């Protein structure tokens, strides 16, 4: 089993590295960071622009492939803080990633875990109660939630929270930024971060859970029709026992692949939410990088995202092996 997972990991790692390099090439080709320095008054001399851009390693006068080579070279040879170069704000990309990753991961992980639990629960529930009113309600709700992009859901939650705050007369739900600056003490800070986490997490979790529940419902329906459930019932297991111990466990196997596949959707969903809720996270960094033609910052974001997806794919393989004894040889 270990060798199987290791092989998959190496495979994913190669893909991740290749994809990142392609992204760098694409970004270097399509982005035009020089525009940032043109049209200033007084105009910046061309030599200065050239030397600035060359300093970042993104001068469009150098061939794209050469710049890509330099970028790879920097990653391999430079010490850690300089590996990914500097963004256009002249901050080290690695330092930016370290300061932003925590914010992003907090939202992403809490959201993904809640989404997975809710999705599995409602999927199984809907399958067991197929065509009953409760199943219909869950189904239609999930159809609507799937069709609500996270940025729309986020803004709607903001409107609701503002109305709630106005109605109660207190700023109970604070949602701008990841935390309120100036709060001291461990518990108040934790409390404050929790409150800020509330709305974006709800938006992300509901969106993710809706997709999971549709899929889980289909898989669970499949399992419900299988012989081993009938056997379990025949040997005297209670309905709940048969459904949970025998049914849900089997129905979770294909879900583990789906979680990993869908993680990418959650990553882009949480990037939208970071913008909506003005969180200084990686998603915001990436979208700002595109808006400002910042090649190094974008490449850094993509590296980060790709590694995250690499970890999630490997984890899903591990989960798959843990759930399905047939893989565990």
């Amino acid at each position, binding site marked *: 089993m270990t060798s199987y997972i290791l092989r998959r990991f190496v495979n*994913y790692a190669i*893909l*991740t590295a*290749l*994809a990142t390099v*392609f*992204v760098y090439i*694409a*970004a270097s080709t*399509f*982005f*035009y960071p020089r525009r940032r320095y043109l049209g200033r008054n007084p105009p910046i001399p061309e030599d200065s622009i050239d030397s600035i851009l060359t300093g970042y390693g993104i001068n469009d006068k150098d061939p794209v492939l050469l710049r890509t080579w330099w970028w790879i070279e920097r990653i391999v040879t430079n010490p850690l803080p300089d590996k990914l170069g500097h963004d256009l704000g002249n901050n080290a990309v690695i330092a930016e990633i370290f300061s932003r990753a925590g914010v992003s991961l907090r939202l992403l992980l809490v959201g993904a875990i809640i989404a997975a639990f809710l999705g599995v629960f409602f999927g199984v529930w809907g*399958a*067991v109660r*197929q*065509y*009953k009113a409760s199943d219909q309600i869950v189904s239609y709700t999930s*159809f*609507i939630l*799937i*069709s*609500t*992009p996270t*940025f*729309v859901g986020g*803004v*709607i939650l*903001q*409107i609701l929270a*503002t109305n709630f705050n106005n109605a109660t007369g207190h700023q109970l739900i604070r949602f701008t930024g990841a935390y309120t600056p100036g709060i001291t003490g461990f518990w108040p800070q934790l409390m404050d971060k929790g409150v800020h986490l509330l709305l974006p997490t709800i938006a992300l979790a509901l969106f993710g859970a809706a997709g999971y529940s549709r899929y889980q419902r*289909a*898989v669970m*329906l*499949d399992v*419900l*029709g299988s012989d081993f459930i009938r056997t379990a019932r025949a040997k005297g297991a209670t309905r709940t026992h048969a459904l949970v111990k025998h049914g849900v466990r089997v129905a979770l196997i*294909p879900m583990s692949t789906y979680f990993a*596949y869908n993680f*990418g*959707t959650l*990553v*882009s969903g949480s*990037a*939208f939410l970071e*913008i*909506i809720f003005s969180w200084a996270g990686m998603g915001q960094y*990436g*979208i700002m990088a*595109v*808006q400002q*033609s910042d090649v190094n910052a*974008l490449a850094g974001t*993509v590296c980060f*995202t*790709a590694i995250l*997806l690499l970890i999630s794919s490997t984890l899903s393989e591990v989960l798959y092996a843990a759930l399905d004894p047939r893989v565990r040889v």
Partner: protein
Amino acid sequence: MSMTPTPPTDQAVDLPTDLEPTASLAEEAGVGAGSAAQKAYRPVSRGRLVWRRLRRKPNFWIGAVILALIILFALFGDLLNIYELGEQDPYSFNAKPSGQHFFGTDAIGVDLYASMTEALRKSLLIGFLAAPLATVLAAFIGSLAGYLGGFVETATNWVINLLLVLPVFYVLMIISPLLSSMSWVILVVAIGLFGWMIMAQIVKNQTKSLKEREYVKAARYMGVGTLTILRRHIIPNVASLLIIDATLGVASAILAETSLSYFGLGIQAPDVSLGTLLQDGTSAAVSRPWLFLIPAGFLVTLLTAVALIGDGLRDAIDPTSEVNRA
């Protein structure tokens, strides 16, 4: 003949209700109750069969009616309106929805109703163009890779996996400088070009089992060309999957366009789409909620309608999908 599904019971859990009454099974086999003598053994075409099942799906009808209404509104909605697209009404800034301005106006008095019909047209057009493009690509690449096997399949696997390493939105985001400098047609092409991978994988796996069938082998040994075999024998066998994919693809294409435009990376002014309207409305979402909630409502309704149609289609095309879709 009874068309009412039997009331769901615990026993019915593993059977789709549309197969429950034996009468409807007989109907599906072409044994019409009315004119049994003449039509007794007339084979029922697959299209008719699917349509028979489809028209019994409430989800399909709900989705189809909503989608039809939205399309009609997009096409003819502006006939009711006296304001042109982008026309400013200097007497009503930030007006709430009223008889004068059906959907209200924004800070410079632009009529939202006029923008809304135009935005829907653009978003629908993008959805209905990009989704079939992605499906055609998926069908072609998937079936070719599955049928030829060997090096072509390995290469396709690598390309697919490479494109799946990153979220599609990130890929589109990276090429967005290219997109925003050109017309929205390029955006359609880009959304199509990055939306085929998962379906191609499914088609490829189906093709690998189909090509071992006798009739495909027979055709091959008779010297029928590869592309002809794909067109005649392989693609029709995966057509149902492709129809579902094209339908659901409309929703994901509209979603991709909306997300890109929302962050200023897709449709550029003076063009309007649902994404640009949502972007404009966000800053006013709390103080002038209609500027955000009306486009958001249209977007969610549209996507839900497409999802419901896709769900109904899936059940109708593959009646076992309710029980063994995994």
